[in-house]
């Protein structure tokens, strides 16, 4: 860490010392401008709400679909409830008449199995009339009695009639037929109704919803039929191949005896045809209508519409609500998570014993697709901004390089004093600078030439002076007695260091004034040293001393040359 800090400090000090490169500064300028513009662009998008458009769109779609589907389910199920209540009233009245004609009591129906088939046959007009409404896939009648009370399965066998159509909601097909799923075969044949492959004569009430409806009606004798109908969750009748919701309305005679159930079927296929979400850009959206409790959407007891990749048969798992994300509810099954919106549809009026077991309607889609739809444009926007950013930075580098290349080339030329660019440099200012520098260079060269000439003259003068000095020294050399000179050299050794220092300065050609300054003497001190030097060396004057000194210097130079 310390090393890094030191390196950074070094770089910083170096930078402060040397400054930044031209290209670096230019890139920094461009990049700053670009980033500023992009940030301003993003800010504008945020301000005008363009970002997050995906979330708004998918939310609007979901809200619209949920509103549409839940309203349709509420309305249609309400109408079917009314149809069921009317059917129950009609059949109950008809049965009352039948009981009266045959001196039978409704409560004793189970003891008179011989009455069942004619009783059922008498109700066929009401069942067929309900089917003719083209609003359901089936109608049924179940009597709390069996034709074989002594049979082993009499506990779960119940007589009745179950009428189905293979083309619910069809108002166009003239060839539409009704089929018999349960009921006496002869009654079916007498009414021109074919038996389905899964036909059985009687119901097998392993499902307990029929008993639930009858028991509840018996416990609430005072309640009208309009408070006693019940919508089952998704059920598949024993031996049947298609699941459905069943509206069950108790059959109650005028004496208050509950002797059976009649009702309406909304099949899986019919539900799909009616309540699939609209085609849209969003994939795999589907509707679930199911009971819900304790944060659990009981989709295994519900019907599914839409999303052709998801069928009612496959939706066998309940969905647990695990919270909210982006304002959408999250549901988790065993393997897949879904997201969407949910709403409760009121099925029962106030006073119904079934209030509280309402139907929840949800419009969902796989969570990964929902998340993708929410991100939608944001992801593209982010990608576009990133691409813009990278492109701008690259452009900054390229443009800076291209702009500065001639400048750097020019600087290099200046360093090499090459001012002739042959038109390579496209900048006028630099070309003017080159002309200016070339002119200055010429002037400088002229000055240099003159100075050189002066130097040469000075050197020539110096050489002449030197030759003259040498000639003079040689002459002096010849003039000085060799023995006196030898003695002089011998006596030099007697000088004190300070005196020797003074002597050496004389030898270097320094004046008395220079020596006083250099050695920080007073003039008197120099005089004192001079006197001692003269005395010890046996000279009488400074002139004589300088003569010996010149001689010594001459010898030294000669020795160096040799």
């Amino acid at each position: 860490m310390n090393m890094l800090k030191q390196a950074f400090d070094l770089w910083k000090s170096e930078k402060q010392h040397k400054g930044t490169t031209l290209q670096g500064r230019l890139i920094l300028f461009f990049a700053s401008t670009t980033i500023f513009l992009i940030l301003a662009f993003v800010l504008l998008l945020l301000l005008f709400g363009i970002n997050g458009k995906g979330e708004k769109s998918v939310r609007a779609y979901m809200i619209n679909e949920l509103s549409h589907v839940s309203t349709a389910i509420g309305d249609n199920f309400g109408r079917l409830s009314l149809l069921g209540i009317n059917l129950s009233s009609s059949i109950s009245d008809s049965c009352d008449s039948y009981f009266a004609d045959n001196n039978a009591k409704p409560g004793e129906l189970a003891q008179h199995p011989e009455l069942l088939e004619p009783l059922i046959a008498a109700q066929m007009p009401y069942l067929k009339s309900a089917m003719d409404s083209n609003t359901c896939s089936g109608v049924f009648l179940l009597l709390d009695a069996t034709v074989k009370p002594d049979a082993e399965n009499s506990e779960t066998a119940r007589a009745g009639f179950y009428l189905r159509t293979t083309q619910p909601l069809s108002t166009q097909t003239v060839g539409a037929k009704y089929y018999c799923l349960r009921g006496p075969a002869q009654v079916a044949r007498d009414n021109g109704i074919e038996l389905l492959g899964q036909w059985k004569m009687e119901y097998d009430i392993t499902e307990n919803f029929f008993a639930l409806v009858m028991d509840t009606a018996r416990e609430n004798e005072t309640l009208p039929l309009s408070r006693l109908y019940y919508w089952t969750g998704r059920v598949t009748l024993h031996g049947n191949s298609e699941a459905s919701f069943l509206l069950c309305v108790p059959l109650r005679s005028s004496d208050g005896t509950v002797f059976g159930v009649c009702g309406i079927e909304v099949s899986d296929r019919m539900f799909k045809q009616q309540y699939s979400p609209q085609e849209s850009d969003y994939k795999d959206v589907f509707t679930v209508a199911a009971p819900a409790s304790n944060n659990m959407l009981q989709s295994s007891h519900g019907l599914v519409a839409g999303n052709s990749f998801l069928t009612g048969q496959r939706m066998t798992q309940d969905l647990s609500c695990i919270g909210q994300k982006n304002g959408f509810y999250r549901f988790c099954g065993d393997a897949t998570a879904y997201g969407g919106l949910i709403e409760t549809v009121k099925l029962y009026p106030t006073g119904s014993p079934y209030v509280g077991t309402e139907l929840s309607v949800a419009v969902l889609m796989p969570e990964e697709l929902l998340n993708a739809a929410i991100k939608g444009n944001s992801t593209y926007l982010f990608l576009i901004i990133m691409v813009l950013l990278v492109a701008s930075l690259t452009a900054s580098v390229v443009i800076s390089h291209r702009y500065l290349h001639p400048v750097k080339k020019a600087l290099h030329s200046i360093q090499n004093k090459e001012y002739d660019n042959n038109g390579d440099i496209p900048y006028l200012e630099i070309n003017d600078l080159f002309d200016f520098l070339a002119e200055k260079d010429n002037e400088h060269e002229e000055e240099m030439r003159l100075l050189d000439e002066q130097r040469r003259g000075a050197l020539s003068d110096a050489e002449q002076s030197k030759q003259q000095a040498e000639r003079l020294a040689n002459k002096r050399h010849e003039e000085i007695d060799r023995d006196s000179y030898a003695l002089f050299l011998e006596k030099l050794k007697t000088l004190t260091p300070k005196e020797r220092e003074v002597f050496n300065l004389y030898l270097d050609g320094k004046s008395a004034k220079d020596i006083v300054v250099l050695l920080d003497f007073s003039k008197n001190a120099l005089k004192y040293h001079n006197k001692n030097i003269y005395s010890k060396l046996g000279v009488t004057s400074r002139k004589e001393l300088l003569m010996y000194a010149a001689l010594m210097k001459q010898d030294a130079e000669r020795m160096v040359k040799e």
Partner: protein
Amino acid sequence: MKRAILLFLSLLLLVGMLSGCASSDVKLNQKNPVTVTMWHNYGGDMQDTMDTLIDEFNSTVGKEQGIKIDVTAISSSAELNESLTMIANGDLGAPDMPDIFTGYPKIAVQFQEKDMLANLDNYSTADELSAYIDEFIAEGRLSDGGLYVFPLAKSTEILYLNQTLFDAFAGDTGASKDQLSTFEGIAQLAKQYYEWTDAKTPDTPNDGKQFFSSDAWFNVAQVGMVQLGGSIFDDAGALSLDNDTYTHIFDTLYAAAVEGGFAIYDGYSSDLSKTGDLVCSTGSSAGILFYGDSITYADGTVEAVEYSILPYPTFEGGQKIALQRGGGLMVAKSDEKTEYAASVFIKWLTATEQNMTFISQTGYLPVTKQAFEKEMPAHLETVEDARITKMLTAVLSMYDTYDLFTAPNTSDFDAVNKGYEKSFKTLMTEQRSAYLAGETIDAQRALAQLK
């Protein structure tokens, strides 16, 4: 310059022609799938199988290619035919035409004459079609030679026998199962059975039970004529009943029907079988799932029974010939994308793997050579439903010993078929009523009435 323009135009023409031929170049959008509506007649116990296959397609190939099959109607063949006929005739109140529908060539003819069907040759290569049994492809080709009915699953007609009821009858009367190989034998047994059951309640006269019925009396007459070397149609394609061969057929059926041994019923024979009101019946081999393992009498008594599958009966002296049944898939003429998407689906649905899945759960016969000739025998051991195994075994055996007859694809075939069926049933019902009322009845007079 002129040459350059000509060259350019030629190139344009060539590109146009090539693009017109290359239907496989149709580009579908995975994100915006083409919805293909479908009607089919595989309801009841077969619905789950078809639903599962369609779901599988939608979630695999359909999802990848952008195709969504949306089943908008599941109904019986008769109901679908009614609706389709309305569409073909342009009747008021007719429903919208589905993109794919199941049906017989007789329905296809009505649409093809009005140029309302897609020629599936445009969406299939010769190599692809060579994988299918040649006769099945040939059946789907109509007058202009185009392929308009793509084979999905085939069936033939067989004789369903309630072995439990028959054994009880044979035990008492000595009736032989061999008699079930001919219509004459069946007529004799029917008379015997009626008397035998009538005798069980001596206090109630004429309450004997019916022995035999057919899902299609026209087929009995049509195939019977071929078995006996004739044809129910004359050279001009009109119904031809004025001959000795048909007279023999009529006489055979008439006596048994009037005397109560044959059931003349508007619905399927299986309805009567479910309540023990019939011992045997001829019908499509694909109807096996409508026969359960028990019968329920009117008083609620349930009896476990076993059914046997026997070859289609012949008229005495006739050849072993049975009807080749089973419709196919038709594609409505539409935009290129929808037609192409429909063709992708039908080729997927009839590929060997899917075809074997379908037949093993419905009782139909496969349509590809590989499935029919190579995979069927081994596959029989893996079929879970014993009824289907029994039926397929019997039918495969029939294919070895019988010649199969295919009904003609004429435009008025359907009308003739329906007309005969209605007239025959009405006549027999009236004759039966007259017989019960003690009136004098006569086969020749009745036949003249039918003609």
